[in-house]
Structures are given as structure tokens and as C-alpha cells.
């Protein structure tokens, strides 16, 4: 479990993290979202004890990351952004080093390294120098070192950054498997990934948390309209005019010769009414569906909305 109270980090005259308060419960996966420079990585570094806060406090498994730093660090597996590793070390000797330095069972170092090599699919490269590894393998080694002592808390900064779809999928599967048994904080620029993996999302902007919610609640809270997509066989213009005339339709537009997208009021499902009108007028109706707002749209709205509010 992680508790962040009124966390602030100032570099010179620049406030990078501004009074952030968050709680991440056991077994929960919290996603940190935000544009570049929002303070996501700094928050993660502070949680991982890499950087002390200017004010406020962070507790990991009830250990203060400043006053009980070593104890707190024992509970954390951290994967920094860009996965820094020792290029001249071999995979196995680096993992042995990580296992030894993170402590725990003395005789278990070999076992832990062997398990990590198997779990993260590193058998083929176990005796290879890290400098010669592909991006995907480097990321796996980074994750393996983070989890080598089986920590209850994982802090993963952009865990799938720069990976091809296959490797990214593997890492996502891994995080999914770990969720429930571990407390995980991760950041990503891939919003679909965050919505798949995270039970809650904290949106940061200019060092401040502007929203914390589950992805579903976040989407539903910021969705003012309902979007309905209608596919017709012919007479698109006639169908468009008809749809615009229906009470509750805010706007309608067509993107090609068959598809009409209508923004409707949120409190009513207008699909039956729209379908009935189109069918009655003899226009062939090929399909009608309601679309949820994507997390990306909510994110853009939140970030832009904050700017508008401040202005």
C-alpha cells in the first residue's frame, strides 16, 4: 500500500510536483497519466526513494520513504523510464547482483535468478552482455530486476515504451497477472494500455493531480453527450436531415457516404427512435451503435479543460 500526503517537489524555482495526495491500496493498479512534464516520473521517483520530496511525505507499506528509506526500498521494485542497465554486465550476473543487493534469503539468490530468467523468458540471453540485447529483452531484464525479490509494491515508469506490439503485449499480460497480488503504480503514454491495466487513473498536469478515478467512472463523468453511429445503405443526406430533426440530437455529421455520427443527450438512449424513423422512411438501415467516449478523449478534455479553467 502506498500513501502520498501533500507531496511537493521543487527544483530551483520550478515546482515539478505540487501538493499531490494519493492512496494506492493493496492489489490495486494505479495509472499515472499526464502530458510530458506533468510530474509523473518525479512522483514515481519519490515513491521509489530515488529522490526525496521537498515537502510532504510518502509511505510505502507504512514505511516513510525519507526516515525509513531502506525499509521502504525493500518493499519496492522499480523500473525507471528508459530502463537504465549496466551494459557491460551479463544478464545473469546483473540479476544476481540485483538479488544480492535487495537482500532476503541468502541461499535463495541462485533460485531467484533462475526463476526470474524463466519467468521473463531470458533463457536464450542469460549469458549475453546487456549491451547486445534488443529493446524488448532489455525491458524484460529491467522488469526482472524490479521483481527479483518479489516486492509487494511495483513502480513501473513507461514499462512498454519503445517495445514492438508483441513485447508490449507480453509486458501487459505480466502486469495483468500481477495485479490483485501486488500494489502497482505505472505510467504510460498509451492511454488504451492504461485503461486495460489500471483499476484507477490519476491525471496529472503541471505537477498537480486534476482527477483520480476508475477508468469507467472517469469516462462516464466526463462524457456530456452520447455518440451514436448510424450506417445507412443509401440516401445519406435525407437520413442526416431526419436525424438532426429528432428531439435530443445535438448534432449530426457524416464522415463518408454511409456513416452518420450523431451527438445526443446523455440521459436518453435515442437508438430506438432513430432506427424507427430511418426504417419508416424507407432508407435501408445497415447498423446503429452507441459509442463510449474513449479515455484519450477524456484525457484531452481534462488537460484542455484545466487550461481553459485557469485562463
Amino acid at each position, binding site marked *: 500500500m502506498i500513501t502520498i500526503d501533500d507531496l511537493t*517537489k521543487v*527544483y530551483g524555482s520550478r515546482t515539478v510536483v505540487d501538493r499531490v495526495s494519493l492512496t494506492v491500496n493493496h492489489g490495486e493498479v494505479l495509472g499515472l497519466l499526464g502530458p510530458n512534464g506533468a510530474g509523473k516520473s*518525479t512522483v514515481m*521517483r519519490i515513491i*521509489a*526513494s*530515488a*529522490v*526525496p520530496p521537498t515537502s510532504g511525505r510518502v509511505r510505502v507499506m507504512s514505511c516513510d520513504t525519507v526516515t525509513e528509506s*531502506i*525499509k521502504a*526500498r*525493500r518493499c*519496492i521494485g*522499480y523500473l*525507471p523510464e*528508459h530502463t*537504465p*542497465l*549496466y*551494459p*557491460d*554486465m*551479463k544478464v545473469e*550476473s546483473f540479476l544476481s*547482483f*540485483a538479488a*544480492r*543487493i*535487495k*537482500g532476503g534469503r541468502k541461499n535463495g539468490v541462485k533460485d531467484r535468478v533462475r526463476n526470474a530468467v524463466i519467468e521473463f523468458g531470458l533463457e536464450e540471453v542469460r549469458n549475453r552482455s546487456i549491451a547486445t540485447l534488443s529493446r524488448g529483452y532489455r525491458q524484460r531484464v529491467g522488469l526482472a*530486476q524490479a521483481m527479483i525479490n518479489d516486492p509487494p509494491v511495483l513502480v513501473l515508469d513507461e514499462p512498454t515504451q519503445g517495445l514492438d506490439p508483441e513485447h508490449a503485449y507480453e509486458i501487459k499480460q505480466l502486469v495483468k497477472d500481477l495485479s490483485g497480488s501486488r500494489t502497482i503504480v505505472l505510467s504510460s503514454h498509451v492511454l488504451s494500455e492504461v485503461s486495460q491495466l489500471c483499476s484507477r487513473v490519476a491525471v496529472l498536469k503541471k505537477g498537480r493531480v486534476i482527477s483520480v478515478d476508475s477508468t469507467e467512472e472517469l469516462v462516464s463523468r466526463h462524457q456530456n453527450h452520447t455518440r451514436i453511429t448510424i450506417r445507412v445503405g443509401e440516401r445519406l443526406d435525407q437520413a442526416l436531415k431526419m436525424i438532426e430533426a429528432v428531439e435530443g440530437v445535438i448534432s449530426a455529421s457524416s464522415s463518408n457516404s454511409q456513416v452518420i455520427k450523431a451527438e445526443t443527450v446523455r440521459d436518453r438512449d435515442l437508438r430506438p427512435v432513430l432506427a424507427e424513423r430511418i426504417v419508416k422512411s424507407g432508407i435501408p438501415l445497415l447498423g446503429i451503435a452507441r459509442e463510449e467516449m474513449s479515455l484519450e478523449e477524456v484525457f484531452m478534455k481534462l488537460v484542455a479543460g484545466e487550461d481553459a479553467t485557469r485562463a
Partner: protein
Amino acid sequence: MRSIYLKELVQYFSSPFFFVLACVFVGVAGVFFYNAVAYANLLATQMSQYQAPGGISVSAVILRPLFMDMSLLVILLVPLISMRLYAEEKAAGTMELLFTYPVSDLKVLLGKYLAGFSVFVLILAFSGFLTALLAVATTPDWGVVLASYTGLILMGGTVLALGVFASSLTGNQTIAAAVTIGGVLVFWALGWFADTVSSGYLGAVLRELSLAGHLSRFFNGLITLKDVVFYLLFAVFFLAVTLRVLDFHRCRG
């Protein structure tokens, strides 16, 4: 601390750098040794020609010049050992990783320092075969040999501490080595400036701070507490300053 120490040793020995450094050090020390022996031989020949009474002093003619030359080699060798200790971590971004492992900065520092120190002592030990070679032909003063090696080890440890400090300042290993060599040369030459700058209190302080001044007694076969404490305090001072630099880096992120 042990895991950091072992990791550093693995990194030193996993590249040809260590072997190249050891070969160059021993090779150049061998040239110095040959030169000292050749000079002693010439001296002995001349003495026999002129039928001079007594023999030549192996300590004065071979050992002292050899160890004096080796001390200059140590000044160049140790910065090459220390330059990577923190600069490499900074350049690779692994400092951040290291900061998050459950080990204190002091233990990391000591692990790194001791690994560098072990590598230095190991390379220095390779030069031991030169005195062994000398022992085949003559009987060297083992007291001078032991004291000289003690002096070189202590001075090497001091230079290493300065090197670790320089390495913590930058992510560029070449700059770290250059700063160390520059710093050592300044402390080496302080004794030379002492007389020209001032003959009073300042001169005495400069003389006491000179790395070379403290070394000469070891080469005469004398191990004094004052010299040992000087080198130890010098090393502790730079290690303590390095800790402050690391703390600064941690706060700055």
C-alpha cells in the same frame, strides 16, 4: 556493501581494460627497474675500476629510484581505475537504479572504493616480481621494500578517494580522470611551492599537505604514524565530500 563490491569487480574484470592497465603498469615499471639495475651495474663496474672501497647500496641505487618512479606511475594508474566508478553510472543512468536499492549511499561508496582499491593493490602486486627478481641476484633490504609498498598503497588509496570524488562530479570518465590527475599533481607539488610561497606557517601547512613529502620517508624504510594518518585522513576527507555530492545529486534528481 559486498554486493556492490562484487559487482564492481565483475565490471572491472569483464573488460580488457584491467588487463591492459596491469600490463602497461608492470611493463613500464619493468623498464624503470631495468634502468635502475643498469645504472647500478654501471656504478659497480666503475667502482671496481677505481677500486673504491665498499659496495653499492641496493636500496639507494635500485629500490628508492624504482619506487619513486612507480609512485609517478601510481598517480597515472589510479585515476584510470577510479574514473568509471560513478561517472559510468551517471552516463548509463543507473545511478537512479542504485539510489532505489535498499542500501545506503555510504555502503555503495565503500563498496565501490574497496573494489577500486583491490584492483589497484592487485596491479601493484604484479610489480612484486621485480623485487623477487632482484632477490635472485642480491639481498634487498626487505624493510625498505615493505615500507615502500605500504607507502604506495596508502598514497594510491588517497588518490583513489580523490578519483572517486572527481568521478561523482561528472558523467564523463575522461573528465573524471583529468580532474583527478590535475588534483593529485597539485597536492603532489604543494611541497615544492611551500618554500617559495612562504617560509612561515603557510609554508609548513603546504609541506604537510604534500603527497610527495609524506611518501619519501616510506622509501627510506620508515613507516611513521604521522604519514599513515595523513593519507588516511586525506582519503576519508574526499570520501566524505563524495557522500555530500551524492546527496546533492539525489536531491536534484
